[in-house]
């Protein structure tokens, strides 16, 4: 659980920078942010917002789902065969979020 929370908060901070960072940067330094990127010719702020933010969110999502699978594997949790009764695993987990860590 603590591992999981660390993943969640890391992801959240990365997300916040990705989504709102370019906008605040554009407010702070409009000249720099609206300059043209070589080759693809986008204004920097437009590219960061229109392309990088959405695709970044997708990459973060895939990263999180993978991390979560790795955590499941690490603690031997298997979702493929639902147990029906939640209490069957031997080291029945305390659900207050402390024991599985």
């Amino acid at each position, binding site marked *: 659980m603590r591992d999981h929370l660390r993943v969640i908060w890391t992801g959240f901070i990365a997300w916040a920078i990705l989504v*709102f960072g370019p906008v605040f940067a554009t407010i702070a330094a409009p000249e720099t942010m609206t300059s043209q990127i070589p080759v*693809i010719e986008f204004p920097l702020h437009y590219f960061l917002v229109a392309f990088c933010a959405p695709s970044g969110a997708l990459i973060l999502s895939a990263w999180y789902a993978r991390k979560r699978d790795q955590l499941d594997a690490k603690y031997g949790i298997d979702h493929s065969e639902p*147990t*029906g009764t939640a209490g069957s695993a031997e080291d029945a987990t*305390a659900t207050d979020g402390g024991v599985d860590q």
Partner: protein
Amino acid sequence: MTGTGTLLQSGLLPQGMDVSFKLAPAVLVLGMLAIFLLIGFVFRVADTEDMWVAGRSIGNIENGMAIGANWMSAASYLGMAALIALSGFYGLAFVVGWTTGYFILLIFMAAQMRRFGKYTAPDFVGDRFNSDTARGIAAVTAFLIAFVYAIGQARGMALVGLYIFGDIGFAGLSGYQAMVIVMMAITVLYLTLSGMMGATKNMAVQYVILIGAFLAGMYVVGWTQGYSTVLPQIEYGMLISELGSEFSEPFATASPYLWIATCFSLVVGTCGLPHVLVRFYTVENERTARWSTVTGLFFILLLYLGAPAYTAFGVRLFDVNPNTATTYAAEGGMSAATADVLVVLVVVAAQFANLPQWFVGFVAAGGIAAAIATTAGLFITGSSAVSHDIYVNLINEDATQRQQILVGRLGIVALGVLTTLAALDPAAPIGALVSYAFSLAGSVLFPMFFLGLWWENTNRQGALAGMLTGLTIWFIPMINEVLPTYISNGEPYVAALAQWLPAIGSALVGVPVVFAVTIIVSVMTDEPSLKTKKMVRQCHSPEPMGQQQSAEDVVTDGGEPLDD
């Protein structure tokens, strides 16, 4: 139809859009609608589990597609291009808000909601806070969201239908109004028949059609006009400098505050929309809930990354088209009148590019598929709020399955009638209507979901105080800004209020206030019962759960695992 101010038919029709019966597109669209009805019939439902949560049997890719189709409505397919063209950089707040919110949904709520394992969003609120009043408020909110959101879809469907079938005005109605009625009748018919199972199976098909049509439109327009080759999502950057500074200049049409408020509202709205959340109740387990969010976001991005590109192509074609007699830059961006072209820009761009008629029809059909899929999701959650949350839980606790399904179907018909009436003469554009629904979901439901799942001490009093606060904060700007467009000159009553608490982004103020109120009231009153707390813990437990199990079942029957 030249000149910027000339509009057809009560200002709803964009100039330059050719309204007439078109054979090939008509056959395409009718064929598509027949397929939807057939699939709905094959997967029709007989019990409530299938009706509301598709038997909790949907897999990863299929649910990803359903998330995509459910999400991408007429507002995405048709309305977003208009927003980007009209508002330049501000329009991107919608692109960002409507995509990146899924990450927040994924890390904080998707799997936890699946573990909670109920039927509807109001169910969660009612059971988590042990309060029928809270359930009632949430159900009314869900119904209101479905209604406000669906008006825009009805308008989008009707505009595209008009383009394809021509003016079929009957009984004193204009062609547009007649088309609203026809399209909504078809949607309601297929929904009452199929329920969630049929709707979910259909959503996968609808996704394939809508994304296929959109991408085909974008690639073919880009290719034939020489704007792009293989990656239009990036190549349109080279067009930007030719489109006039209005297209990309930051904060030219809206202040930075409005940009952030809008984007924030759309993000939290994404996490609070009942028809989005219910997609996580339909999957087989929590791992599927997580991965289908990832696939869903990928499927959504296929459209959203392309939307600004398609818009840039459309604006460029608008500039060079002799019939429009003006240019984007000459208009200083887009005036309200020329912007109407862009309501159906995706379709009109294909027409401006002189592509064959059947192809334009195919692109248009994608718009209809998008609108129908979203309306389906909205109506099912809206009617489940009526049937499941209000009728069964508050009125008739002993309702049989037959009665529940009957009331559910009546709910769908009622929503259909209400939406049709409201869409006959809509007062706000598609994008704005949809955004109000997001502000509402973000201010009222998102804080309840978030605190309900993550802070076990959130109690009934806190939730009630929070939801009422959220509703109030949502209503204030609606009255200040939206009411005047119906009853007076359209100017907000208090300009400063409209600046700092805009209707389109009221959740930026609403969310922190509602969080604070909920937490303060919860702390000042009694803690919730141990059973409720255990339910919350169960949502975060790493222990796998049965497919048909809810957190409450585990807490009630399987006392064993909770050895805390």
